[in-house]
């Protein structure tokens, strides 16, 4: 073990490896800033070049590109309310209202630091629990996955927006939209009206942009000429990134808990970071003493999902490396790259190739630090964008939004979906309906349906007696009761 640590350390701290790592981080940050492309596409494009490199350098580059994505995709989410990827959707909830209050720099400071620390906590948690991971994965089967998906949907539906019934209705609508396309079990087409475009379901990015970004943009543009995103704030910079750092320090316990939620979800194959961020956000709302500010620009609503997001990534890496089980599409791609590099992910990565596994762990730690540092260095300049008049930003943003939407499948349908969901988004925003449950319902629909189908096929009704299922069911009920009580108290006060 010690030998491997020494070899790995020697391998990574060379000029060329550090250059590859930093190059990866730089490339990833540029791509993370452009909504809709993401690290997966970059990796897919670079794969032919990567496989020609020596394994250690290739792994370092892959980690660099991949690690910054989760940190940098927050930038458009906070500045413009445009989630750079699905894993940044929760950050929009409080990050963007903070930007509107003139606190973009504070939000970004808190976000980058929580991402960095979350990533580190995730990496160490995973390292420390490697011997326990296999039994854990094996006890968590299809019934537990199904219940986790249900818990995530219920949590978001009830905890975002302060109107539980509206939240549940929107979440249900999200589930229905998610069902459009071919049924995963039988391939039967559902609500596709013979349209090839609909046969694969409506892609998420045009919907997320239509529901979140366009309504914000329209509202901003409809304001008086010269309106800025941070319209409510004075022109002088009212908050600094250091304020964000202090926020993180003040909420360190929330950060740790969110990182644990993230690591835990990360090592469960097939659930993914999109549930981790919302579970962490839901947890922040549920456990917060004063909840009134959530959704209106509460820094805790930024810290929790950002920490969980990066922490879940560490879990995902562990699953792929040590068990050969890729937990996400990006990890499947990384696994393919590893096979082509002559490395078979699996137990041998902890024995024969231990030094390469440690190179990856080192790279993850360093890449997280580099990513945090890089984003931190430019926070003020980025936050300055929110002080620009919206009529300068509008043309750039609208082009970016259309490009990002069209990136999904390169079909006219993407643009039609974007426009259609923009109308829905505007109506929802104007009439005070919560928007996140729509996206979460859509994302989790396929997981919930698949795992429910497999659960009933494999276990009949006996799955209802499994201990973890009962615990998760209890948590779901508790979430509902808690939300209803909170709502009725708020009503009584009003």
């Amino acid at each position, binding site marked *: 073990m010690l030998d491997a640590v020494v070899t790995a350390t020697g391998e990574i701290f060379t000029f060329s490896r550090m250059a590859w790592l930093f190059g990866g981080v730089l490339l990833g940050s540029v791509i993370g800033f452009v909504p809709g492309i993401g690290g997966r596409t970059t990796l897919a494009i670079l*794969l032919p070049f990567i496989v020609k490199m020596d394994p250690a350098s290739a792994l370092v580059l892959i980690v660099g590109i991949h690690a910054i994505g989760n940190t940098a995709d927050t930038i458009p989410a906070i500045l413009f309310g445009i989630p750079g990827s699905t894993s940044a959707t929760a950050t929009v909830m409080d990050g963007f209202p903070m930007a509107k209050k003139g606190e973009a720099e504070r939000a970004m400071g808190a976000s980058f630091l929580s991402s960095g620390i979350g990533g580190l906590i995730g990496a160490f948690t995973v390292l420390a629990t490697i011997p326990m991971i296999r039994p854990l994965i094996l006890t968590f*089967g*299809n019934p537990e996955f199904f219940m986790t998906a249900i818990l995530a949907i219920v949590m978001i539906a009830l905890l975002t927006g302060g109107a539980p019934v509206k939240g549940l209705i929107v979440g249900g609508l999200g589930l229905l939209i998610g069902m459009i396309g071919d049924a995963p079990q039988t*391939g039967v087409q559902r609500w596709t009206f013979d349209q090839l475009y609909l046969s*694969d379901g409506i892609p998420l990015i045009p919907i997320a942009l239509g529901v979140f970004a366009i309504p914000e943009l329209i509202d901003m543009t409809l304001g008086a000429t010269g309106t800025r995103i941070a319209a409510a704030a004075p022109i002088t910079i009212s908050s600094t990134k250091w304020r964000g750092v202090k926020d993180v320090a003040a909420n360190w316990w929330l950060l740790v808990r969110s990182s644990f939620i993230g690591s835990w979800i990360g090592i469960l*194959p097939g659930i993914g970071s999109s549930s981790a961020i919302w579970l962490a956000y839901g947890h922040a709302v549920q456990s917060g003493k004063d909840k009134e500010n959530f959704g209106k620009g509460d820094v805790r609503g930024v810290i929790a999902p950002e920490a969980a997001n990066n922490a879940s990534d560490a879990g995902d890496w562990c699953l792929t490396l040590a068990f050969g089980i890729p937990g996400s599409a990006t*990890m499947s791609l990384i696994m*393919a790259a590893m096979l082509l590099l002559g490395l078979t992910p699996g137990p041998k990565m902890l024995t024969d190739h231990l030094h390469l596994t440690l190179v990856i762990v080192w790279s993850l730690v360093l890449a997280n630090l580099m990513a945090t540092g890089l984003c931190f260095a430019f926070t003020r300049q980025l936050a300055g964008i929110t002080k620009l008049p919206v009529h300068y930003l509008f043309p750039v943003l609208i082009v970016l939004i259309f490009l990002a939407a069209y990136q999904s499948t390169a079909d006219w349908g993407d643009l039609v979906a974007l426009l259609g969901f923009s109308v829905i988004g505007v109506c929802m925003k104007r009439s005070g309906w919560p928007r996140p449950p729509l996206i979460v319902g859509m994302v989790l629909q396929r997981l919930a349906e698949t795992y429910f*189908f497999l659960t009933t096929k*494999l276990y009949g009704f006996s799955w209802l007696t499994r201990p973890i299922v009962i615990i998760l069911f209890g948590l779901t009920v508790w979430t509902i009761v808690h939300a209803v009580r909170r709502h009725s108290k708020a009503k009584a006060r009003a």
Partner: protein
Amino acid sequence: MESKNFRHAVFSMIVLAITLIFSLRYAGAQSGESFFKGQTITIIAGSSPGGGTDSLARLLSRHFSKHIPGNPKLVVSNVAGAAGLIAANNLYNRAPKDGTAIGTMATGLTFRTALRDPALKFQLEKFSYLGQIASEGNFVYVRSETPFGSIEAIKKANKEGKKPKFGAQAKEHNSNVVPMAMEAILGIDVDVVYGYPGTAEILLDIERGALDGRAHARGSLFATRSNWLEKNFIKVLVVTSPQRDSRLPNVPTLEEIAPADKKPLLEAMYSVQGRTFAMPPGVPPERVKILRDAFAAMFKDKDFQQDVDKLGWNDELIRGEELNKKVDELVHNELAMGFFRKILQ
């Protein structure tokens, strides 16, 4: 004067002839070799990035170009959904018919053809096939600790009302079709649980003990779970290729143990095992030929062979012309189509 006119006429004829020759040559080149120079060929992979189909498309994108005259660029475009059906529909109906679009063909498309699925927007035999990389068979295996360790043991367990549970992806995926075919051919009862999102989830459920086994492409088993074989965690019952696998010489082929009257059905099953590439119908024949030749030449390339080995695939080549013939025979073979319908419905 007359001779001047004559010279003029001759000169004009020569200019015209040269122009014609050049334009014809240019036209010929356009429809053939130099057409591909500076072009971009899109490889439509019928899955999301990662996974077997995508890896295959990316393997092609790395090695194919250098064998095509004009060395066009190759780009992979992922069109996931319905086990490759959407990609095939797109390839047939929407992709350019000039040789700049190639698609991966999922084996499940044959089964959907048999079922006369209305979601199919193509005729399988009308694609122009490029070639098949690996005519892969499957290993059918169970966990060693289950009471289903041989075909005889399964028959015995069947009598006691027990059936092995096999995990599978979509209904028309090989992981479902192979055990179903085995059931029909060998007269045993198996319970196939289909609907898994991917191969990793099936493997996990086997480890959890929720499933007893599965049918698994040979290459994929060796590339990702060779430790299961080393540790005797699984017992391989049968291999579904025409010959035994040299890495597991003691495992019988399905053909060896199939009753004589069921053997014609095996041909139908072999015909749908493999990783195939196709082009839409209507591509000019000379371009189809150029691409088929390039595909065959790629097989002799050392770098290509190395990569195929790393991914654990067999590298038998079936040429496109032969595939077109095979597919045409298959879709008109009512016995085979009826067999597919029976096992799928």
